[in-house]
């Protein structure tokens, strides 16, 4: 479920980032707008400018021409209220008729904060009175009660931050609620897809936002399961067929082998007849080995051979195989030399003893089968960096580079579904490779320093 968590993290991350960016953008815009509105102090400055420039001569109050033109341009009117009389003692020509000509203190207070007859008004303080500028209606909106509780202003940063945090939290909660259904639907889908490569059958509930996807996954799982089952069935049938045939052939072969063996040692027969019997014994032994090999190879291939690993001394295991061959005394044409260093008495590995014995037996038997005229066989156990090495060499006919390349890299005909005529060779080496692989080891086939064939098995050494 790591991917779902990753998905949620990514969604939340994007959401938080976009919220933060949105807020920052808003602040920037607000700042720019506010800055652009700063000239709104202009009417107050103009009013003060008029108050400062209004002077009194013998004919009364006079405003310089340029300011008068400026006021007219903006369609602004102006009056000057005398401090002593509270009456208008000077005015511009464009003063609307509805503007009163005398004011009480409360009128002054009102016009300072607000309007005269709907005209936004601004005041400027002169020496003996008050200059009032009136702008066209609806040209300004005035904040008539500009006062706040002090604590409100004092706590403004804290309040602002709290609101921000609450906003973000609210956005987050709304997002989670809005997406929880989607995530709830996604989670089993992701789990299902992750489980598809495993052997188990998957069934996801086919409801929610992604029910169609769930249906497809369930169907895919069913198909895969059925294919695996069919394949397994075929493999089992094939292995059982091989096991059955090899079982049925054992009893008749016993009789061929037993009687031929008796004839071989029957002194009443002619030398020629005994030789013929010896050939029958030899060939029936080959058939027995082939049956055993075929059975084991198919079981190893289809993972039907139980592997029972245990801590074993490989030196002892290999030595026992060599001694068994010598004790069998099959013929004297293939003497076996034990070349393990006497100082190496123990090489521990986690192995199935019977299978490893089988692999080494196959290698020794191979040397014999491929050198019927006779050869010396050399067996040794050595240690590598992290592995135990079993080497079986001979000084027989050996193999060409091409043959060795093919043995090392071409698939055996049992494992190949095409071009079977090119890869036909015995099962002995295939079993050796399969056994080595089942133990996490490797098989190396090459030329022997003794002039013949060499096979080296490397098995992981136990720590």
């Amino acid at each position, binding site marked *: 479920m790591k991917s779902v968590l990753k998905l949620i993290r990514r969604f939340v991350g994007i959401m938080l980032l976009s919220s933060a960016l949105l807020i920052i953008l808003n602040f920037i815009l607000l700042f720019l707008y506010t800055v652009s509105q700063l000239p709104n102090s202009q009417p107050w400055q103009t009013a003060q400018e008029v108050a400062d420039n209004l002077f009194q001569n013998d004919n009364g109050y006079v405003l310089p021409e340029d300011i008068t033109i400026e006021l007219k341009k903006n369609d602004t009117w102006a009056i000057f209220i005398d401090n002593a009389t509270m009456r208008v003692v000077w005015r511009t020509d464009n003063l609307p008729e509805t503007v009163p000509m005398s004011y009480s203190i409360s009128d002054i207070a009102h016009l300072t904060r607000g309007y005269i007859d709907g005209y936004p008004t601004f005041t400027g303080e002169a020496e003996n009175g008050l200059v009032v500028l009136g702008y066209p209606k609806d040209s300004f909106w005035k904040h008539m009660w500009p006062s706040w509780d002090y604590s409100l202003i004092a706590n403004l940063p804290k309040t602002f931050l709290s609101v921000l945090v609450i906003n973000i939290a609210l956005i987050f909660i709304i997002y989670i609620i809005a997406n929880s259904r989607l995530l709830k639907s996604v989670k089993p889908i992701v789990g299902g897809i992750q489980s598809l490569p495993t052997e188990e059958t998957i069934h996801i509930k086919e409801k929610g936002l992604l029910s169609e996807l769930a249906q497809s996954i369930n169907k895919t799982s069913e198909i895969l399961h059925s294919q695996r089952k069919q394949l397994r069935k075929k493999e089992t049938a094939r292995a059982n067929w091989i*096991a059955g045939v090899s*079982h*049925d052939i*054992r*009893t008749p*072969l*016993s*009789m*061929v*082998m*037993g*009687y031929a*063996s*008796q004839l071989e040692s029957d002194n009443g027969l002619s030398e020629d007849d005994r030789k013929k019997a010896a050939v029958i*014994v030899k060939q*029936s*032994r080959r*058939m*027995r080995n082939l049956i*055993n090999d075929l*059975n084991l190879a198919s079981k190893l291939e289809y993972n039907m051979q*139980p592997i029972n690993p245990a*801590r*074993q*001394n490989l*030196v*002892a295991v290999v*030595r*026992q195989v*060599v*001694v068994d061959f*010598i*004790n069998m005394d099959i013929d004297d044409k293939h003497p076996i030399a*034990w*070349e*393990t260093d*006497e100082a190496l*008495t*123990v090489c*521990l590995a986690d192995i199935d003893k*019977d299978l490893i014995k089988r692999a080494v037996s196959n290698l020794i038997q191979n040397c014999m089968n491929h050198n019927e005229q006779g050869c010396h066989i050399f067996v040794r156990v050595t240690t590598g960096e992290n592995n135990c090495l079993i080497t079986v060499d001979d000084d027989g006919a050996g193999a060409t580079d091409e043959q060795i390349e093919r043995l090392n890299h071409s698939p055996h005909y049992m494992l190949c579904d095409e071009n079977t005529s090119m890869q036909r060779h015995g099962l002995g080496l295939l079993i050796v490779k399969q056994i080595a692989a089942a133990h996490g080891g490797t098989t190396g086939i090459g030329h022997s320093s003794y002039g013949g064939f060499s096979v080296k098995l490397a098995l992981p050494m136990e720590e």
Partner: protein
Amino acid sequence: MNSDYLKQKRILLVDDEQELLDMVVSILQKDGFQNIKTAKTAAKAIAISETYQPEFAILDVMLPDDTGFNLIKRLKSTFDYPVLFLTARGEDDDKFRGFGLGADDYMVKPFLPKELLFRINAILRRSYKDENPLVKLPGCEIDFDRAEVIKNGKHISLTAKEHNILAALYRNAGRIVTIDALCEAAWGDNPFGYENSLMAHIRRIREKIEANPSSPVALITIKGLGYKLMVEGK
């Protein structure tokens, strides 16, 4: 050591194939066994067992009226004689089952007569001790029951380990026994690092059994592999 007394043992042979029975009988007779009865079914095997009192049985696993596994159970519940399975069933599970039910050995067909005889003789030797317990070696005799070597009329005692090592060698007389198998006989399962101790014991055994321990003729070293005990008459 004379093993003629083993050839007198009564043997019961059970297999559903008449031709195989005939062949095994001929192999056994040729090796000197005289008293052999055969049965093609489990029922007949039980009947023969009751009347004939066999001292050794060779059983097939697949019989027409029962399995060899059930047959050995029934035989072992009443009689106590060694049993060898001779069958076409070569799966590990079958072997484990056979041994678990008390079989002394398990052989998978097809087989060489020589191998069958070797296994039968080994089982009989293990199960039935000779009335004359002395094992003759070149230059001395061993009395395994009394754990003694008799050399030049003198009785020399064997230690427990020496006895076990010699017994393992004697069971495979004339054949190589690996260093590891001898260590196992003396020190139990998976003995590592006892090779030097084994050599010391072999040296002491040679002092007891050999006329000239520095050039042994009874207990031979097979370099790097193990040892071989030469017994007279084998």
